[in-house]
């Protein structure tokens, strides 16, 4: 589960937004670029990260919204790289416009960070078939934990699923693991990722 901590830092314009992005803890950058995956579909916003959605909707800066919106968190192996890319995009954009866009809706950007609280689901698998069946029924929070948390906050870059499937201590299926890593880059929702991984598992099982 995700515990949300409000940092009490607010931005009402894009210049202040950049300043705060520079100084907040990495967990806040992570929250605003990854919690999208845990949100209900009705509130996922225009773009898959909060910075893009806020500048587009509240600062009425569609161009910056689109430039930030296309940013894919699965292109990065650590949070500082994500932060750096956001700052580069925003800095470049602000250098080319004459006035700094300000919030027009009265809704400031509120910085939050998240703490993920883990609980053991008592679910162990030993084969690809068991993995496939387990993945099909676990809570979406577990998918988030093994895909997003593992990659960016725990330094297990390929993600737990690919690591176990491809690793020698796991199933040793390297090709399948590589295909699973690529699923993150497709821009899918968590449910979409789960469906795609299940499909890859089914294909591998059928071929065996």
């Amino acid at each position, binding site marked *: *589960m995700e515990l949300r901590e409000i940092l009490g830092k607010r931005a009402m314009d894009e210049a202040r937004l950049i300043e705060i992005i520079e100084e907040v803890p990495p967990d806040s950058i992570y929250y605003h670029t990854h919690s999208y995956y845990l949100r209900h579909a009705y509130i996922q916003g225009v773009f898959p990260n909060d910075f893009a959605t806020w500048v587009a909707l509240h600062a009425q800066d569609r161009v910056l919204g689109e430039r930030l919106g296309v940013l894919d968190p699965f292109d990065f192996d650590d949070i500082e790289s994500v932060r750096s890319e956001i700052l580069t995009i925003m800095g470049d954009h602000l250098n080319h416009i004459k006035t700094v866009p300000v919030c027009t809706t009265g809704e400031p950007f509120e910085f*939050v960070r998240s703490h993920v*609280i883990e609980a053991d689901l008592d679910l162990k698998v030993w084969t690809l078939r068991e993995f496939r069946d387990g993945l099909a029924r676990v*809570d979406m*929070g577990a998918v988030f934990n093994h895909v997003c948390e593992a990659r960016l906050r725990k330094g297990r870059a390929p993600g737990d699923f690919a690591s176990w499937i491809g690793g020698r201590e796991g199933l040793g299926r390297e090709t399948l693991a590589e295909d699973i890593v690529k699923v993150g880059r497709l821009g899918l929702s968590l449910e979409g990722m789960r469906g795609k991984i299940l499909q890859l598992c089914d294909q591998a099982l059928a071929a065996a």
Partner: protein
Amino acid sequence: MKALLEQYREVTPPGTVDFLRQLGRRVEGKQMLHVNSTRYGGGVAEILHRLLPLMEELGVKTRWEVLTGTDLFYRTTKSFHNALQGMPQQITRDMYDSYLQVNRDNAKSLNLEADVAMIHDPQPAPLIDARPKDAKWIWRCHIDVATPQRAVWQFLRPFVVRYDAAICSLPKFAQRLPIPQFLVYPSIDPLSDKNRELTPEEILRTVEGLGVPLDKPILLQVSRFDWFKDPVGVVEAYRMVKKSHDCRLVLAGGTATDDPEGAEVLLAVQKAAGIDPDVHLLVLPPTANLEINALQRAATIVFQKSTREGFGLTVAEALWKGKPVIGGQTGGIMVQIIPGMTGYTVNSAEGAAFYAKRLLNNPNLIATIGRQAKEYARERFLITRHLQDYLGLMVHLCR
């Protein structure tokens, strides 16, 4: 009979109950204490009555202590409440002294021993002076402190900053504090009398018992008769809708006998409504949970047209009953109403009328939004999510 938590399995998202049991294992045996200022009446007491047995079932040894105060203390904390919500108040030295003295007295008489204590709202905040060694104390703020009266906040802040953490209901309620502030939305209990499923017969009997026939679409607002809830604006919206759509308006709420403003608002609403047999003003006692449940289930569209709102759990209640909600664009209403998905947010009586007409013209839209509203409430505003947040915070603070 099923264990209490098991009763929630059918109404919560898949995996919720199992996850709560796993999370509970991480804090099993810990002692948790809640302290507030009343055992009955009000949203805090209502949710504690429901939450505590669930925490107990998960192995958290939970106690609930209630402050005992004087009349002056309660008048003072009522003034604090108003001042923190931005209404200018005159608070005398005697009032501040009474507040501190009552807290000192309670610190001696209450059992404050626990691993984690959750102190609700400003009334017991100074109990932090009596925190046992090694205990984790959390200040749970249920009210809107976005724009507090400065003098009162300056008085309270030195107590608040000594807690290990604070919880607020919306990010904009957070203040600049040197302690972590967590975001936890309040919740409704889907199995309580106010929210449990009712049979069509129960709904019919209860609503007709209140003098409201079920012969035409019902527009409903459930809330205290309070200017901030804008009941007069709701009557204006109804008048605009009524020109083209035959419907009824029900305004249901309570007004305390010691609240002169409530009586004044009710009078203004009666005047605005005039003589119209399709407008029903129902003054209900705080115990009328079943009646409110039945009215919400009988309604076609629910309004919560507040101009200022803390969280506005009546919105979650209506969403849970599968009703589209038209609400004021303020406070917690904005996290509950997703425009076009679970209802519409508006800034005027005209806006409320416009969306009410749109919905009345399209029964399929009412059904679709109602279905979405229920699923959204299921995921975000049920007591099981609230319990999960509190357990998660315990795990976080105790590790």
